[in-house]
Each structure stands twice: as structure tokens, then as C-alpha cells.
């Protein structure tokens, strides 16, 4: 039986150009981060050394995270000594909550919730077939949908994805990182993938 797989990819990377002062960058803004970063082990940090023209990965031991602030230690403490113009890039480490493909035939539904700005897609769990298993969800944040236009567009977009390829294949519903996919033009401002 031919099956489509619906692909979702969240956004989770941000670059900063260092100027001077403390070796810190602030992450988790909605424009760049769908997954909330609460532990430094969720991210990698690299530094483009402007003077040397090289990329340098910063070891986990050279990082610390306090709320939304990432601090890069000095080079003598496993970090990197930043100079003006260096580019710091923070990127989420891929997990089940950053990207996934879901079977079309395990799609359960799409609905709004109590918020006027949220749409939720549900799939049967990919981790369990137990009756009590929760569903996997993709939660979209959208503009206030007073005229119910966006919810309808999202529903139609999901329908298009479910039936996109009669021979079966991967269908990108929304890749926030690259801003492509069937739902790319619906002004979705956040997408949270939650595999139960």
C-alpha cells in the first residue's frame, strides 16, 4: 500500500556578530527558535574566526547557559576568545522534537484550541501502539484568526499533503528552517513538534 509521509522541520539556529564585551549571546527568540533551549546539551556552538577565516566548534565544556544567555568561556577554559567581527552560530542538536516524518495513515486530525492563535495537528504516537499512548502533535502559532481563514487554509494544506503523491513519498508540510512546504505562506510564527 502506498503511503505518504508528512515532513515537518522546526527552526533552531541563530548567528551573532561579536562586537565587544562579555562573550555572551541571547537565544530562544520566537523568530529563530521553535524548541525551547533549556540545557546547553541541546545546542552546538561554532565560531567563525574572522582573522583566521576558520570555523571552530566550541566544546560543551566551554559553554554555559543561564535562562536564554549562552556564555562562551575563554580559550583557556575550553572556550574561544572572541574578537570583533567573529560570528557565533548557535544551533539546536537534532532530536525527535526538531524534525520528523509522520505517516499519512496515522493522521488523526487538526483543530483549533482555546487560543485564537493556535492550530494543532495530531498523529497516532510513533513510539507506542498502546491504547493509552498519547498522540504526537505539531502545534502552529498563527495570527489571530478572527475570520477562521487561516485554520481553513491549514486544514486544506494538510489535506493536500495527505494526498499529495499517489505513489507515496515524503511531502514537506512545513520546513520552518528553510521556509518551504505547503504551509510556508500562511504566516505561521512558531511550530512545535512533540513526539509523545
Amino acid at each position, binding site marked *: 500500500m502506498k503511503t505518504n509521509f508528512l515532513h515537518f522541520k522546526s527552526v533552531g539556529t541563530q548567528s551573532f556578530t561579536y562586537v565587544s564585551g562579555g562573550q555572551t549571546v541571547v537565544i530562544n527568540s520566537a523568530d529563530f527558535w521553535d524548541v525551547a533551549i533549556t540545557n546547553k546539551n541541546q545546542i552546538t556552538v561554532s565560531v567563525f574566526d574572522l582573522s583566521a577565516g576558520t570555523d571552530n566548534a566550541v566544546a560543551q565544556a566551554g559553554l554555559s547557559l543561564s535562562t536564554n544567555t549562552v556564555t562562551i568561556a575563554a580559550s583557556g577554559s575550553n572556550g574561544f576568545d572572541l574578537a570583533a567581527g567573529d560570528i557565533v552560530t548557535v544551533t539546536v542538536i537534532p532530536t525527535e522534537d526538531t524534525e520528523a516524518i509522520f505517516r499519512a495513515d496515522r493522521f488523526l486530525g487538526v483543530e483549533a484550541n482555546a487560543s485564537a492563535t493556535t492550530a494543532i495537528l495530531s498523529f497516532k504516537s510513533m513510539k507506542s501502539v498502546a491504547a493509552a499512548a498519547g498522540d504526537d502533535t505539531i502545534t502552529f502559532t498563527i495570527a489571530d484568526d478572527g475570520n477562521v481563514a487561516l485554520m481553513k487554509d491549514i486544514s486544506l494544506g494538510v489535506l493536500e499533503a495527505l494526498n499529495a503523491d499517489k505513489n507515496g513519498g*515524503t511531502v514537506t508540510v512545513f520546513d520552518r528552517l528553510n521556509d518551504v512546504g505547503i504551509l510556508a505562506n500562511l504566516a505561521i510564527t512558531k511550530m512545535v513538534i512533540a513526539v509523545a
Partner: protein
Amino acid sequence: MEKYLYFSNPNSGAPDQTQETAMYATSSLLGVCPGSATTTLLHFTPRDGGTNPADIVTLTHTSGGHKVVFDGVASLVNAEKNNMPFQVVADVENSIFNISGVTACSIASTD
């Protein structure tokens, strides 16, 4: 006709332990997601008839190559290339990897 995905990862020579080879019906594939920068997890309905947790086949691949693996899995599930019921995904013993960038696999089941 149902199609099946085949995986092998024997430690050496003939399989002599559980989880060294596995074949799952494509209808048992529940979903696919990254495990790390270099791994992708394929979740299957447990082979032993249980319900939880899912069996997991981990494919190791080039860093960031998840979308390539997603596309490859979807292609094999749908037998896009040859319409054969027996689809080899990763056969480590014979160095057969039918998804670009995949170099290893491991199988984890609850039985």
C-alpha cells in the same frame, strides 16, 4: 501486496544474538525522527506483539542527513524503485545500504 523492510547488523559472521537482524512490515513503521545529528530513528510496532515501547532501528549517517534518510525510507516503504516486497534498508554484514549516506544500523526491540 505488503512490503517489508530488512535490516542486519551482526557483530561478526552468522547472527547469534537477538537484534542482529530484523524484518518489519512496512505497515508496522510508525514514524521516523532524528536521534542526534548523525542518527535517525525508525519506530516500528513491536515485533513481539507488545504495544509499548516501539521497536527502534537506528540508522547512522552523515551529519545533518536526516531529510535524505526520510526520503530514502519513504521510497523504500513505497518500493519506488523496483516494486519488490523485500526491501533491504541496511545490511551491514554485506555492506549494502540503500539510503545515501547511511553507514550503519542497530536494532532495539523489547523482546
